[in-house]
């Protein structure tokens, strides 16, 4: 194991332990709920970035994968109420398989056509779930979360800890991919697919890998959703917000590195949480909209790219 990898894994472990320690010291549930939403977006934005940022395939169907994870969990809860880790694994598996299947069917499509196909996937799945009465259909269903959980004083703290751990793990996965030959292969696909293929990059395999991992992470992020919101119905589970935010956050943070979606999700997600309880909610959408437009126009490489440029300029001056 090289030094960089060691440091990264230690930081990851420290963050997970740290988030557990927070739950033993802080009572205020609002911060747990707000942090849960932000961390959920860290997972979604990181997952989106594996396909959208590393490989260059823009996915508008985040909500489909997220909701698939959420509804898989609801179906399981209705059947035999398994523990949360089973829901996470199954949600991830189902959404990962969905990603694999969709990848297999649609990856011959390029650019905007692929994006439209993913958007259509969300619409089709929403219609199916709306007519699936076992999980509540269009009317939705209430989900009772477990009353208590060992080691945590309430379930909100537990959900926060789980989402914090998932965020750390998903960022770690993105980091490992980025630093490996797989990441370099993906970058080659993003830059020029034909050239990459000519150079011997196994493009279909890599693209399928990207759709599967990205889909699985989104599904895992969706699995605890029904416990968080207690009431699940298709309109909110398939909300366009998930697609827009998970795309906007990496765009704002920067799409080419693991740090971009993390920075974007934390900044935009936190700003949204603050706006929800301080400013009007129109401001909430305005924040995302104007940040997205601003970054696409003035800093197409996102915050990380912008800092890189600034650093390069200073370094130039110093030299």
């Amino acid at each position, binding site marked *: 194991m090289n030094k960089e990898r060691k440091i990264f894994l230690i930081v990851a472990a420290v963050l997970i332990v740290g988030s557990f320690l927070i739950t033993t010291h802080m*009572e*205020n*549930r*609002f911060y*747990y*709920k*707000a942090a849960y*939403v932000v961390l959920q977006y860290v997972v979604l934005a990181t997952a989106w970035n594996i396909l959208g940022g590393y490989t260059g395939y823009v996915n508008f169907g985040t909500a489909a994968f997220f909701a698939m994870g959420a509804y898989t969990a609801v179906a399981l809860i209705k059947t035999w109420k398994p523990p949360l880790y089973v829901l996470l694994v199954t949600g991830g598996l189902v959404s990962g398989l969905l990603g694999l299947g969709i990848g297999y069917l649609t990856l011959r499509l390029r650019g905007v056509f692929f994006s439209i196909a993913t958007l259509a996937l969300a619409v089709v799945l929403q219609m199916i779930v*709306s*007519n699936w009465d076992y999980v509540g*259909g*269009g*009317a*939705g269903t*209430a989900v*009772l*979360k477990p009353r208590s959980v060992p080691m945590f004083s*309430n379930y*909100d703290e537990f959900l926060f800890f789980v989402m914090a751990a998932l965020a750390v793990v998903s960022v770690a996965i993105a980091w490992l991919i980025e630093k490996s030959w797989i990441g370099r292969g993906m970058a080659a696909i993003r830059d020029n697919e034909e050239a990459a293929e000519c150079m011997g990059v196994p493009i279909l395999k890599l693209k399928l890998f990207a759709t599967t991992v990205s889909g699985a992470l989104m599904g895992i992020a969706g699995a605890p*959703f029904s416990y*968080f*919101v*207690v*009431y*699940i*119905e298709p*309109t*909110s589970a398939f*909300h366009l*917000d998930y697609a827009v935010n998970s795309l906007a956050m990496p765009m704002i943070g920067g799409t080419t590195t693991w*740090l971009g979606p993390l*920075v974007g999700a*934390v*900044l935009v997600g*936190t*700003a949204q*949480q*603050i706006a*929800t*309880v*301080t*400013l*009007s*909610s*129109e401001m*909430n959408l305005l924040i995302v909209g104007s940040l997205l437009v601003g970054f696409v126009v003035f800093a197409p490489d996102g915050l*990380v790219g912008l*800092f*890189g440029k600034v*650093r390069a300029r200073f370094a130039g001056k110093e030299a």
Partner: protein
Amino acid sequence: MGRIIRHVILGFALLLAVSIAFTPAAQAAKEVKIGFSMALTGPLGPAGKAALLAMEIWRDDVNAKGGLLGRKVKLVYYDDQTKPANVPGIYAKLLDVDKVDFIVSGYGTNLIVPALPIAMERGMVFMGLFGLDANAKFKYNNYFQIMPAGPDPIVDWSVGFFELAAKQKPRPKTIALLSADSEFARNAVNGARRNAKKYGFKVVYDQRYPFPGTSDFTPILRAVKAANPDLFYVGSYPGGSVGIVKAAHEIGLEPKLFGGGMVGLQYTAIQMNLGKLLNGITNYWFWAPEKTLKFPGIEAFLAKYQKEAPKQKLDPLGYYLPPFAYAYVQVLGQAIEATKSFDQAKIGAYIRNNTHSTVVGNVKFGKNGEWATSRTFQVQLQDITSNKMSEFSKEGKMVVLYPEEFKSGNLIYPYAKGK
């Protein structure tokens, strides 16, 4: 990389500073704070804003009389954007950061349910605004819901329509059911289906139409016409309700009784749009300016509401939701006054065990926190001669037919005669 991390930390610090700057300063002491989330934007935004205005009128009324137990009332609320996912965070903020004394719900089932477990965990009284059987799973004894749907809301919703139909001579035999493919409409029609069986009407047509996304209803209603039903029960949302009424007139669909669970016909803007086309339709209703429904305080409330609503571009008459939004906080206020206490358990017990006189009439809660008996009116629209707003604020236009106790006129039967 080190520099990037430093910049990220700086970003965090800035955000934290902003969040602290926005945190409201310590509130004036001795206020009774009532917290809630409300849909002020999104699909339920217009109705949510009208509900908020009604609640503000209640607050001003109470404060004008010196507040609750000598403490002024303050409403603390946040916009949930009609998104259930925002609700848990908002109620956690209300309770843990704003330290509100009471919580009441936002508008609609989807936005009530996510807050219910939070109220349960804290043992707080939770007043609900227009939830349909929201407490079915939780069975929380301090939840009280103000919409008069009754103890078995899904079935009770349409029972009046079937009672009326069953009394007609010759007795109708067949029924067509049509619903939007979404939550409320499907529930309403599921109840109607059970009632059709109970009252012995043969279902000759039973379909759902895609929602949202259906704009032309003529092909659907032609199929209904071909089935030639005596009764036509519709569960629809505002846009669909307008389309269905217009299409029924276009193709000359004339069942003997038409309406039931159409949302939107109670809204002033839609009434002004449809005008005379509404004549003869029999539909569920919650309040109308009929002599039998002049509950204490309703006219004073509506006068205040109607003065303010046009300024905020809200439903100008406000007969549907606003009186109930006033009433659900009114019940809470009365319970605080009566128990002379801010103790949640005492207030809950008082609300559970007493009848409350409100602007929407006497309210008694039963099991599950729903009304002990259903009081969903069936109203027939009669004698509408124009599209003017004044037409719909007059007596005798929305005639109450059911329940018997509130009856203000007679059914014009069949529908074609009332058209």
